[in-house]
């Protein structure tokens, strides 16, 4: 039920592998803390890998938006990788599909951040 997050570095980009549920409560808090921690450490190129996210609710969507705006306001960039159909549909319905930069290939996604 809970969400897990682990990070790895590739060519100056922090890839955050998320799994589980991003919902009101624990999942949203985990995501918020991870992004806040990365920014505090100066990691401003963030790629959220949502491939193993099984469920997301409106609070989780709000947390993704918040992460996006926080990173952008901090002079960085946040992109999404490997959306499941469920998450893809939710972002399309909420018109956020056009807001986020969404990738389905990790190497291309990392390269898209530039040096």
């Amino acid at each position, binding site marked *: *039920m809970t969400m897990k997050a682990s990070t790895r570095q590739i060519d100056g980009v922090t890839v955050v592998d998320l799994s589980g549920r991003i*919902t*009101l*409560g624990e999942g949203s808090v985990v995501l918020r803390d991870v992004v806040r921690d990365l920014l505090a450490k100066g990691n401003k190129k963030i790629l959220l890998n949502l491939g193993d996210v099984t469920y997301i*609710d*409106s*609070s989780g*969507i*709000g*947390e993704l*938006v*918040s992460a*996006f*705006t926080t990173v952008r306001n901090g002079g960085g960039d946040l992109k999404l990788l490997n959306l499941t159909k*469920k998450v893809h549909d*939710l972002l399309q*319905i*909420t*018109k*956020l599909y056009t*807001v986020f930069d969404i990738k389905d290939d990790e190497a291309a996604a990392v390269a898209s951040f530039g040096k």
Partner: protein
Amino acid sequence: MTAMQVSYTYHSTLESVNQAEEVATRLAVKAGFDEEEAGHISIAVREASVNAVVHGNAYDASRNYTVSFENAGDKLIIAVTDHGRGLDPSALPDPLAPENLLKQSGRGIFLIRAFMDEVRIRSLEPGTEITMIKHVHGPKAGDKEESK
């Protein structure tokens, strides 16, 4: 399909929201919805339950909320009722408006409307009742209209 009606009363906690969501998924599958539709129903029930706990009963443990399910054969009728502050659906901002697109909250009722065929929001005194209907074989013509 046998007609069935069942109702659950929950404390105003986030744990109960997960329980309501799980019951919704199980009953939706039992009613004949496929996995994707059952997932949509599950999200709608979750959002209505979160609304009851967070915005309606404001986490007040002394206030319960109720989730009732009626399998009417060709459709599943779900009602989520709280006893807290009322909800004025006409006062809800449009989450798709450019000025609201990057707001963190305000998408719950929108998702309910998107995923269910019929949605009615009724103010009680006190509280709110959100009734959601999903047809087993897709919506009938005109069913996407919302009424108060």
